[in-house]
């Protein structure tokens, strides 16, 4: 078992396309790190470089203390779960799991014992003599996991291993993958495009965009201290509300579309750098779950709004609203606000979402005041995208 370290790793494909830029990462032994980002941001490329399936264009990769640049995949002692599993179709489940051990000339009795044990852990015992084509997607996924864990490798690499499963199976396997990893204590780099998966599974999460690391932190910190607009918008569901705004020349008022909001001294104490933004543009962020209806008080951040759509989820109610402000769109992040319902009968153009207590009853077209605690308000520089602290 070992750690994974990447130092300033670059990947430029033969086409000249830079898929990964100066990528640094350390996955400690036994740690579960998730690499998350939109499709095409370079996640698979990074895994393949660690596995040795793709050469690095620059930088160094270490597994444990050993630099592995230029070492063949078979000599790196990594196990990889491929997105499409890549099971050997001509081998049985047992054959698939045993393959790596056979190559290592492990004794027959030891192999069958290990295969039996892994089959038990993964609930594959009664399928050991079947071929992959006879299995369901979930079972194939388990075989792919089995093939990885039976080897007791130095590190695990997993490329969106759950993305081909349906939602309920995926939720179940999330827990199971974690359980297995915790048990084996093998350093794991897990790739996904699903931020929920990333947040629920990772000890730490690396957010990647266009081959550039945006932030690497614990799920908690990613959520509460995003370093830039991309991370703020990418993490959390529904995504953080982001509004374009400007600060008055004297710094007292935040002009957010049709409304003016007082910027209190308290906000400036929380965000000292914000003082440099007098008569400049900023982006204001507030998470849907931090908005409440009413509580129109001076010590809260309040937005007057019109309700355009109500989604009753049972546990919460999602309220899409207009604040007469312009929403900031972030490239590469899906946006849940139902802006395309702008032509509803009340002509409300929705720019934001509030996640409210289901007991609150609101009607479409109703004018309400939404408010949030001051410390749940974020400011970002619209040009650099960086958070303003």
């Amino acid at each position, binding site marked *: 078992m070992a750690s994974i370290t990447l130092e300033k790793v670059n990947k430029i494909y033969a086409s000249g396309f830079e898929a990964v830029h100066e990528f640094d990462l350390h996955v400690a032994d036994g740690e579960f790190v998730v690499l998350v980002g939109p499709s095409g941001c370079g996640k698979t490329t990074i895994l393949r470089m660690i596995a040795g*399936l793709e050469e690095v264009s620059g930088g160094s990769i270490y597994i444990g203390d050993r630099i592995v640049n230029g070492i063949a995949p*078979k000599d790196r002692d990594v196990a990889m779960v491929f997105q*499409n599993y*890549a099971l*050997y179709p001509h081998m049985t489940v047992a054959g698939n799991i045993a393959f790596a051990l056979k190559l290592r000339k492990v004794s027959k009795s030891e192999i069958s014992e290990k295969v039996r044990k892994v089959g038990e852990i993964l609930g594959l015992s009664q399928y050991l003599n079947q071929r992959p084509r006879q299995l369901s997607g979930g079972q194939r996924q388990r075989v792919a996991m089995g093939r990885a864990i039976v080897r007791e490798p130095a590190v695990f690499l997993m490329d969106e291993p759950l993305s081909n499963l349906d939602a309920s199976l995926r939720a179940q396997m999330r827990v199971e993958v974690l359980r297995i990893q915790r048990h084996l204590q093998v350093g794991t780099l897990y790739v996904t495009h699903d931020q929920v998966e990333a947040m629920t599974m990772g000890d730490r999460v690396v957010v990647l965009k266009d081959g550039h690391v945006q932030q690497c932190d614990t799920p908690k910190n990613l959520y509460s201290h995003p370093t830039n607009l991309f991370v703020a918008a990418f993490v959390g569901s529904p995504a953080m509300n982001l509004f374009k705004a400007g600060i008055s020349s004297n710094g007292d008022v935040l002009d957010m579309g049709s409304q003016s909001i007082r910027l209190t001294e308290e906000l400036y104490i929380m965000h000292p750098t914000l003082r440099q933004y007098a008569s400049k543009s900023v982006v204001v962020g507030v998470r849907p779950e931090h908005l409440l209806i009413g509580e129109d008080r001076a010590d809260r951040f309040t937005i007057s709004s019109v309700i355009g759509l109500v989604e009753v989820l049972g546990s919460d109610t999602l309220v899409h609203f207009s604040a007469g402000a312009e929403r900031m769109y972030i490239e590469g992040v899906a946006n849940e606000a139902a802006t395309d319902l702008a032509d509803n009968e009340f002509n409300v153009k929705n720019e934001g979402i509030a996640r409210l207590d289901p007991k609150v009853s609101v009607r479409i077209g109703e004018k309400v005041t939404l408010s949030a605690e001051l410390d749940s308000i974020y400011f970002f520089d619209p040009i650099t995208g960086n958070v303003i602290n």
Partner: protein
Amino acid sequence: MLGKSEYSLPPSIKKRNSRRGDLPKKVVGSYWKADLVGLMPTMALYVFLVLLPIVIAGLLSLYSWNGVGSLRFSGFANWDAFFHDPIAAHSLEVTIVLALVSWAIQTPISMALGFFIAGKQRYRTVYAALYLLPLLLSTVGIGLVWQALLDPNFGGLAWLAQNAGLSFLQQNWLGSNSLALWTIIVLIAWQFIPFHTLLYQMGRRQVPNVLYEAASIDGATKWKQFVHITLPQLRYTIVVSSTLMLVGSLTYFDMIYVLTDGGPGDTTRVLSLDMYQAAFVANTFGYASVLAVVLGVIGVVVALLLVRFTGFSSLSSQREGIA
């Protein structure tokens, strides 16, 4: 140690997984009928193209016939003659050696070339066209060209031997007892390797690359990848190619006829040549039919054995289940 997983699959998935073995007998029966109906066209072709000629030859083998006059029933006289004919026994031996050696030479070379070309992205179609050229030329034409090249006095190889110092090329390639059969085998290989190269190239290109990646991560060397991924994945290609090679060389006739006509002596006298001579030189069609039956039966048996041994008959996909 982790507890055993308690989780059970939803019924919809279980159902999808059930195989024919789980179905009630009645349903299995109707599957069989469906299979038979589906086999009809193939069976019809097989009867007309394979069985019928063998049966006709079989009947003819019971008669004495010079090809012009009337048939005269002669019982097993032709067969009796065959079993006591040292020339036929020798021809059979030459035929089998030719077939086996051809297979053993052509298969690895075709595979190696096919895999090599499969890797090249550029010019693949150009290669394909070039490789098919020998198949487009008439065998008789090829035979004449080779005859010219191999002539010990005026041939191209002899010229090289004299002018380029490659004296080992100075051989009586087609006229020497010890060389003629091997020369023929090499020329047949030259003629057919391109086609089999294409077969292997297509087969290899069908194998998903990710299998090799998975295997290399699992610790497989290139050789182990070949043994554990390529060979099993190419099972059907190997069966098809080997069947064509073996059956093709069992019945191979034209180039041998042109180049050596079985000589020198009868060192290259294959069964098909024997058959030709029995029919059209000696005008003993009954006896020729015996040889035809023997060749036909050997061909069918070889094909069936290949299919049997390699499990081709199980009709299962080689790719399904990767993902």
